[in-house]
């Protein structure tokens, strides 16, 4: 399991506000998914090698004797910075308040080879980050031993102070004048039980900044003499620029320059209100080849249409001529990310160099794209990531960084550009709509003899800048749309999952949990329906059909615990029903019980019980926060949200009409229980989104005897 890190070089460099900078240059770790895919395609996808011209800087010792960690992962609310601080504090032998975490700018040389996403940050950093912190600690001790004229074994280290031979040194004193570092073998890590911070519900390291309104987000970034830009884009899907009254717009008050690029027009002005006012004066003629309708989109996304990929196949297929085969169709709509901080960037391009400050989940990809667009070498582009006002997958695409950089290049000054809310809704990289056909047949024992999930989706991973198309050529499947699409009841003698995928005329991409939400809605609603048909308790019906291997045991454990904790019953009580559902995503099984009533023809969710097996929870409180957030975002997507097409435009274009869960829709009670069924941290930010839609639909079935098969769930 444990991988030893490889060390390249250690560099001491003076930095602004620092006594000195220590660095461990290493970047050999990759997430398991990428590793597996690289195994297939090693020669075509060069892995990040860390051989940039700038030194790799992970740890800095500040004047205040703090350890500043430059994180290749960004903080978008998921709590990763807090977990990073916990991991470093425990192995570095410093207190939590002696660790600072900042997002690494690309000029540090610390660039994530992939992205902050897939709920993988803590899982990926778990081993290498602790090893680096422990190695750094030993390196400091070696230098301290020299300065204190004593043997390494006589030294003790506590809260950032190294003592021995009757003297003590602060870390900032230890690093003084060190030009060449001795690097020991990677030390053994502490046993779990000895950690002071890991595994504890430590408060978030960014809590004060977020409660007192500090300017930490991309939207808050500014540069001296900065100008403000707005961009005009086509409102119809597939529209192409023809002409515009650019000259008239340039005469408007405060406008500096109007620039037309491929399929967009940028207006740069002295202030944002002036840029926005000028936008309303701009008349653009677009060529609109076609006005797409929702029906046409639905037709593209239909099982049987497009590329077929067998994901799972066991035993034989159910026959279409068999009267005993139950068939149910499910659908989910186009979904918007709707993160509250709009996409945007502050860019300054001058003297052959570019600096871009923004909220991004793909720091390295942003750097490459900006460099390519400007024709610059990579090392002349510095990307500075900020805190993200929500990510949810939206910021895996940052074409706006390129746009801000191009506009800055045009005017020779820093430019800030961010999306209007209408642009956000019309030019999102949407969660694709899906279509599912579930088939199943009961055997004589009242259990499933066969079950099949046939599902169609627009692209999720295919076509993404972070997933070269070649990988999909190798896999012949969309590895994003596939998530949650497999049958987890592998004791059933005959089962299969078949994916169909097709591109759409607008961009679809990663949306928190990818295919999991819709796939689990279809599968777990259908399993519930079959349990009812078999006249069985739906919890027992599930347990009876899950394999006894490790994955199966862990899934059964979360199901049993959720049923126990919620005192699950399939009978109504006080006008309320309980709905049960479970899913396994990224190796982390999760079960939900939703307690629901119908009041005035509206669905009311009173309580959700959630059990997640996330392996080691580095910060149990923040894992619970991720569960609560996933449940509420899942309720929003399952009961409220829907994008459609109106007159060939994506619609709606504002919150409100794009209906989302508010305070009044959130369950008053959410009970979360964590199981540690693995000896490493597992992904937590997405797996708990899986079961919620089905759990609510299954409760509604018991309340109304209606099987709802389409998201968002509507009673009539």
């Amino acid at each position, binding site marked *: 399991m444990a991988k030893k890190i490889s060390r390249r070089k250690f560099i001491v460099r003076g930095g602004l506000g620092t006594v000195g900078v220590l660095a461990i240059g290493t970047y050999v770790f990759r997430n398991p998914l990428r590793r597996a895919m690289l195994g297939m395609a090693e020669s075509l996808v060069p892995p990040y090698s860390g051989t940039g011209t700038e030194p790799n800087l992970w740890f800095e010792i500040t004047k205040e004797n703090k350890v500043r960690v430059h994180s290749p992962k960004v903080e*978008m*609310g*998921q*709590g990763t910075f807090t977990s990073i601080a916990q991991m470093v504090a425990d192995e570095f032998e410093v207190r939590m308040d002696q660790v600072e975490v900042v997002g690494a700018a690309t000029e540090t040389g610390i660039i994530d080879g992939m992205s902050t996403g897939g709920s993988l940050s803590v899982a990926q950093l778990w081993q290498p980050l602790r090893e680096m912190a422990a190695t750094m600690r030993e390196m400091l001790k070696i230098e301290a031993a020299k300065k204190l004229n004593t043997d390494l074994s006589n030294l003790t280290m506590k809260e950032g102070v190294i003592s021995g031979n009757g003297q003590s040194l602060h870390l900032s004193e230890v690093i003084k004048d060190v030009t060449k570092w001795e690097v020991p073998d990677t030390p053994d890590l502490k046993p779990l039980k000895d950690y002071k911070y890991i595994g504890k519900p430590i*408060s978030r390291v*960014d*809590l*004060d900044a*977020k*409660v*007192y*309104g500090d*300017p*930490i*987000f991309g*939207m*808050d970034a500014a540069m001296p003499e900065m100008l403000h830009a707005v961009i005009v884009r086509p409102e119809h899907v597939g529209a192409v620029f023809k002409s515009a009254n650019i000259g008239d717009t340039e005469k408007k*008050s405060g406008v500096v320059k109007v620039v037309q690029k491929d399929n967009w027009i940028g207006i740069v002005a002295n*202030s*944002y*209100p002036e840029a926005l*006012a000028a936008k309303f004066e701009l008349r653009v003629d677009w060529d609109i080849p076609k006005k797409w309708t929702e029906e046409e989109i639905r037709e593209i996304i239909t099982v049987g249409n497009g590329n077929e990929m067998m994901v799972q196949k066991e035993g034989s297929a159910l026959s279409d001529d068999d009267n005993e085969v139950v068939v149910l169709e499910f659908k989910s709509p186009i979904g918007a*990310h*709707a*993160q*509250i*901080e*709009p996409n945007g960037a502050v860019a300054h391009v001058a003297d052959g160099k570019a600096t871009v400050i923004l909220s991004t989940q793909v720091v390295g990809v942003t750097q490459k794209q900006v460099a390519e667009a400007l024709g610059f070498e990579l090392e002349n582009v510095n990307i500075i990531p900020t*805190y*993200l*006002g*929500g*990510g*949810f997958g939206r910021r895996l695409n940052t074409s706006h960084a390129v746009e801000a950089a191009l506009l800055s290049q045009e005017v020779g000054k820093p430019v800030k550009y*961010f999306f*209007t*809310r209408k642009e956000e809704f019309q030019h999102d990289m949407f969660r694709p709509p899906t279509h599912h056909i579930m088939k199943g047949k009961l055997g004589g024992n009242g259990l499933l003899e066969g079950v099949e999930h046939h599902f169609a989706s627009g692209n999720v991973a295919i076509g993404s800048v972070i997933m070269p198309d070649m990988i999909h050529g190798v896999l012949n499947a969309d590895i994003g749309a596939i998530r949650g699409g497999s049958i987890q009841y592998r004791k059933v003698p005959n089962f299969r999952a078949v994916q169909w995928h097709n591109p759409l005329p607008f961009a679809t991409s990663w949306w928190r949990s990818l295919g999991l939400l819709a796939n689990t809605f279809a599968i777990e609603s259908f399993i519930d329906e079959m349990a009812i048909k078999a006249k069985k308790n739906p919890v027992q019906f599930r347990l009876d059909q899950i394999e006894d291997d490790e994955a199966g045991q862990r899934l059964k454990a979360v199901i049993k615990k959720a049923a126990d904790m919620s005192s699950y019953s399939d009978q109504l009580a006080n006008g309320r029903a309980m709905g049960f559902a479970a899913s396994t995503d990224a190796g982390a099984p999760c079960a939900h019980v939703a307690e629901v009533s119908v009041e005035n023809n509206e669905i009311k969710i009173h309580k959700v019980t959630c059990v997640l097996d996330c392996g080691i929870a580095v910060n149990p*409180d*923040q894992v619970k*926060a991720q569960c*609560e*957030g*996933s*449940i*509420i*975002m899942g*309720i*929003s997507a399952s009961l409220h949200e829907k994008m459609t097409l109106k007159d060939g435009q994506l619609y709606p274009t*504002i*919150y*409100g009409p794009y209906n*989302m*869960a*508010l*305070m*009044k829709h*959130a*369950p*008053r009670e*959410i009970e979360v229980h964590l199981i540690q069924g693995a000896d490493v941290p597992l992904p937590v930010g997405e797996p708990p989104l899986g079961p919620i839609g089905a759990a609510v639909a299954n409760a509604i079935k018991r309340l109304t005897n209606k099987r709802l098969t389409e998201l968002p769930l509507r009673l009539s």
Partner: protein
Amino acid sequence: MIISFTVNNQPQKVEIEDPNTPLLWVVRDILDLKGTKFGCGKAACGACTLLVDGQAIRSCSYAVKFAEGKQVTTIEGLGTPENPHPVQQAWIEEVVPQCGYCQPGFMMATAALLNENPKPTDEDIDQNIINICRCGTYYRMRKAIHRAAELTGDTNDSTPKL
């Protein structure tokens, strides 16, 4: 046109060409108080909520001319780490924020609610706290609002009215 008003107890005079400029941009880009957020520009999400004479308003759709002579309070003026407002104290105790972007708007809306209604019920909260949080922190937020009400009751008259 010159607009005179008070922001976080500091008198301010702002010269502005268009008096219909939203207060949000005056606060963010002229007064450089970035804690008040832009979310939608149509008063639909509440990220830009601040207080004008103690009332919660959505500043993206509130012309600066209407602030003439009034008291504006932003998140920066609500409290400090040394002297947190009960709402901020409660938010810290319940560890509410995730991404944090919408949180100042929610805290300002809550401060205004507690000014009017020191002990809001769950129904009062549902009806009055109608901002949008994409991370889904509503569950903790509800607990924090009740906690803030308790803290406000504890400190009672010592808390200055906004």
